[in-house]
């Protein structure tokens, strides 16, 4: 597979994650390059429903390295929550997720406040 890009052609919610899941099984890397926790990607495997916000949905295939690239906006606490949730469902995440130092961080002010 050449370097490929899956992109939403309309206003979002086109079913990108399902297409990524279908062709992504042949990928070595799945990379996000924009957006943040406001994105919601759903993949259904058998009876299990996986919702992704920050982690690339390629995480479901054990051979794929997932990169949260520059251009993204990351809430570190949400990211940890998402990684833990994926791991809790029996998926090995060790050494498979990398986060770009260029990605922007969302402070709690932007995600609802802490007080």
């Amino acid at each position, binding site marked *: 597979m050449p370097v490929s890009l899956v992109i939403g052609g309309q206003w979002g919610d086109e079913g990108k994650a399902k297409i990524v899941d279908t062709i992504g099984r042949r990928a070595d890397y799945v990379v996000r390059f924009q957006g943040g926790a406001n994105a919601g990607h759903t993949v259904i495997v058998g009876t299990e429903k996986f919702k992704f916000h920050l982690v690339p949905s390629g995480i479901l295939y054990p051979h794929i390295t997932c990169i949260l690239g520059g251009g993204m906006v990351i809430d570190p606490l949400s*990211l940890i929550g998402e990684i833990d949730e994926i791991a809790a469902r029996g998926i090995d995440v060790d050494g498979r997720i990398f986060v770009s130092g260029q990605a922007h961080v969302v402070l709690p002010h932007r995600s609802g406040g802490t007080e």
Partner: protein
Amino acid sequence: MRMCDFQLDSSQFEGYLERKIKDKNAMLRDQGFRTVSSARTVERFLEARKRLLPLIRDTRPMLWEAIERKKSILFEGAQGTLLDIDHGTYPFVTSSCVTAGGAALGAGIPPSAIKRVIGVFKAYCTRVGNGPFPTEQKGRIGEKLRAIGNEYGTTTGRPRRCGWFDAVAARTSVKLNGITEIALTKLDVLDTFPTIRICTSYKIGSKEVEYFPVDTRLLNRSKPQYLEVEGWNQCTGSNAKALPAKARSYVKILEQLVGCKITMISLGPERRATLRAD
């Protein structure tokens, strides 16, 4: 603040974070918003730092090397082209570069590296939140699309606005992103519609328009011109290679109107239901 700031040593990081929070709190106070607890945020972020530190790196050389070694790389876009900060329905847009160029910009790879651009389109249209949506159907048809397509937001649960396929918008997306092939999703949602409409152009005043106008005011005045086709009125099943004749013809019409081939058709949400068209 960026993820690389987590790579400062822990006392430097703490100081940096405290200054950032102080600045933001001043802004929040100015605007009459609640401020944030500095101590609590610092504590949680120091904890997060321990967990995330091993994951943070300059991911660009990883990608450059992967490209040179001819590895398979798939970039996964979020949101949609019409929400792009520059090319979307401004000001009703997201805050990032959603279009194909954004992959190069964000991930730091050369635009020339991307050889295949798969544009994902629903067989109809939806939109969450405010902003122009020329083919929106507010009545019975919109409700039917929402009910069958389960059109509620993944993140927020908000009901999505629904309408007919907009070939003007799609054509613009194909050109903007250099889409080389289309994946058409949720075609089965149209199974029970006796007639189906496709927007082929807009009329703005007396002018016929084939591409999405840049001025949102013009979009609001756009009158979609529709082609009406008969529905297939039967279950498309789970095999995109054996679609009902009228569903096949619907797909062909979309290809012609949009100017790009549809190489994948997805029926239903399960993983196995994604099939390549013949």
